[in-house]
């Protein structure tokens, strides 16, 4: 296609090799305009963040105006979630290393860092499961319990999806896979998403466990 920059419309140029309908479909191709997929993902993450924001607002309001009945059990252990927080923060750094490895053309290093990231994510999920099974309250015991499970469960779903994405990215970074230094979108998208999930957890940890 001709350059689209001629503001005054140098018309003699245009007709020479324009992209006439029928020659190429163009729809759904990403070659014709700048790649805005990461921008789109970021917009989606803003939306996803608003879902969490709604949950957080509900939780904080419940906490402020709905005192729990006497004898309600809502004590949380701090040790395991704190370890989990460390794992998740660490995994953001390992993912970053994986991305750097890909761009530098160090395929093997990239794949190793990805595997470590996925393992950290799985460890987080395992820790979450252990915590769930040892908590003294169930989903419907009281308002705090319900909100606790809703928040951590919704976040856990995000982590699960993230781990699946990392494994797909890991598979696609193999030699002759779809993701390489020249086409890093899949990895970049998964990384952006993973940092987002990590950031949400930090807020969640702050208001649910520390506050």
């Amino acid at each position: 296609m001709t350059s689209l920059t001629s503001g005054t419309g140098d018309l003699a140029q245009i007709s020479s090799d324009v992209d006439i309908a029928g020659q190429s479909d163009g729809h759904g191709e990403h070659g014709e305009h700048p790649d805005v997929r990461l921008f789109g993902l970021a917009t989606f993450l803003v939306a996803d963040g608003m879902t969490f924001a709604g949950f957080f607002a509900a939780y904080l309001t419940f906490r402020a105006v709905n005192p729990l009945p006497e004898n309600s059990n809502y004590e949380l252990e701090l040790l395991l979630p704190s370890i989990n927080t460390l794992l998740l923060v660490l995994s953001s750094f390992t993912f970053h290393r994986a991305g750097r490895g890909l761009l530098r053309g160090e395929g093997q290093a990239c794949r190793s860092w990805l595997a470590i990231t996925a393992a950290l994510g799985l460890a987080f999920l395992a820790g979450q499961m252990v915590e769930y099974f040892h908590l003294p309250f169930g989903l419907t015991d009281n308002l705090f319990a319900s909100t606790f499970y809703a928040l951590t469960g919704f976040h856990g779903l995000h982590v699960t999806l993230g781990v699946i994405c990392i494994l797909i990215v890991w598979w696609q970074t193999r030699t002759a896979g779809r993701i390489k230094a020249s086409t890093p979108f899949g990895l970049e998208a998964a990384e952006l998403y993973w940092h987002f999930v990590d950031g949400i957890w930090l807020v969640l940890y702050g208001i649910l466990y520390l506050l």
Partner: protein
Amino acid sequence: MTLASPSDFQAPQQSSPDQGGPRGLQPEGWLRYLSFSLDHKVIGLQYMVCGFLFYFLGGALAGVIRTELASPISDFVSRETYNEVLTLHGTVMIFLWIVPVVNGAFGNYLIPFYVGARDMAFPRLNAVAFWLIPPAGILLISSYFIKGGAAQSGWTAYPPLSLTTPSLGQVIWIISVLLLGGSSIFGGINFIATILKLRRPGLKMMQLPMYCWAMLGTSILVVLSTPVLAGTLILLSFDIIAHTGFFNPALGGNVVVYQHLFWFYSHPAVYIMVLPAFGLVSEIIPIHARKPLFGYTTMVYSIIAIVVLGLVVWAHHMFTSGTPPWMRLFFTIATSFIAVPTGIKFFNWLATLWQGKIALNSAMLFACAFIVNFVFGGITGVALAQVPFDIHVHDTYFVVGHFHYIVYGGTVFIIFSSVYHWYPKFTGRMLDEHLGRFHFLLTFIGFNLCFAPQHWLGLNGMPRRVAEYDPSFTTLNQVSSVGALLMAVSTLPFLFNVVVSAFRGEVAGDNPWKALTPEWLTSSPPPVENWIGEAPLVTHPYGYGAPADRLDLKMVTAEQIWNDPKP
């Protein structure tokens, strides 16, 4: 110094644009409209036709409501059925008709033209967003036929009412709204990316047609507020299915939190429904008044102001929900402030019309009626923002009247106006003017007859959502029902017009309105790639009546492109 004559902007006849060549797996002809097409124009029309089908359904439901309310006793349908019909009417009209059509249909069709792109930023996501709608709609309607029936708690689904009505219908309602919300968010992401990132090089933001700004503002509202509704409805479904107590006072929950979260979406939803209409009317009026849009910059800033303010006014729906005085004060003031940017837009439209060369065709009639209706709805809106007045009329027919003046008198009038305006572009044929004006007359009279009396009824205390009422309200309710009947009849000439004109209508040519906005600078209907050749750079989309040499015609007209001698 010659005046820029409309012929400068008339694209040459490009009848039957060549759409040949290998099209891959995309079907040809009308089958495209039933396929997972990635063409934004096809998707736009898919939204449109699908939306109109649901409009007729929602209208039939409204007919049931008005027939029931023609007499003070519950005689036409059972009370439970009335509740279901009421809920389905609201949900269908908002989530399956207005939001998809005024955003999805016109947005998908027009925005790529306006930014000078060949398609939306994410065509596949776009198709997914559309194809979420039919299943969601079918799901919602089918819930009427299941055991226990459809949801009965109104389109707001307030707990504890939504926790005590038959649960299966309510859960299906939630799933359906979640699907539609997802569709809306995907659409919003697409519009934001397209408007911000896909503009033709050289095209500045402040040169975009106003509908782009309106859709940008709308999409920001969609992306920020719809997820909150989704999260809230998920919590509500937990309350229904798993018997948690988020919103159940009997289990220590808090119903007011639901109301806050719900209105955090549903007040912006009003702007999601009406801001695109503001944008569309800003396209239509300058063309048919042959004048530049008055106050472009103030229009842009008022859209931004409406978006920002629209996010912080939700609790004015909750003045009677035990809202503390400081909150009432804040939300009254914030809501009243919205009247300022809205008023700016209103006066800008009037100033655009002022001393214009107005063609009072069907599109313009609906657009002018929009201004009248919307001002009336806007004034009652400011009144409702005032706490003492709101407490008096809360949950009465005054609110119903106000709301329908905004969404029907406002948005639906503009949808009709836009159909008359863009039908030649969609199909290459004109709609019949006489039928169009007849349609307008019936709609305008029917609409005002239907909803104006409801203000009086509400002021005198007739509660909304109830099938029975005090017999002293009978006469005005019958007037309202006659108005509704007139509105129902008014769709017949419209329907006849759009169907017959598609085959027998006068051939429109590429630019029947002699317009300057980019979608008219191509053939009607446009080729798959929107323009043969390069997209025109339209820096003055409203340059009507300006001398040609003052127009700064960096603009590449379609005529220039097509008349260009081959090298």
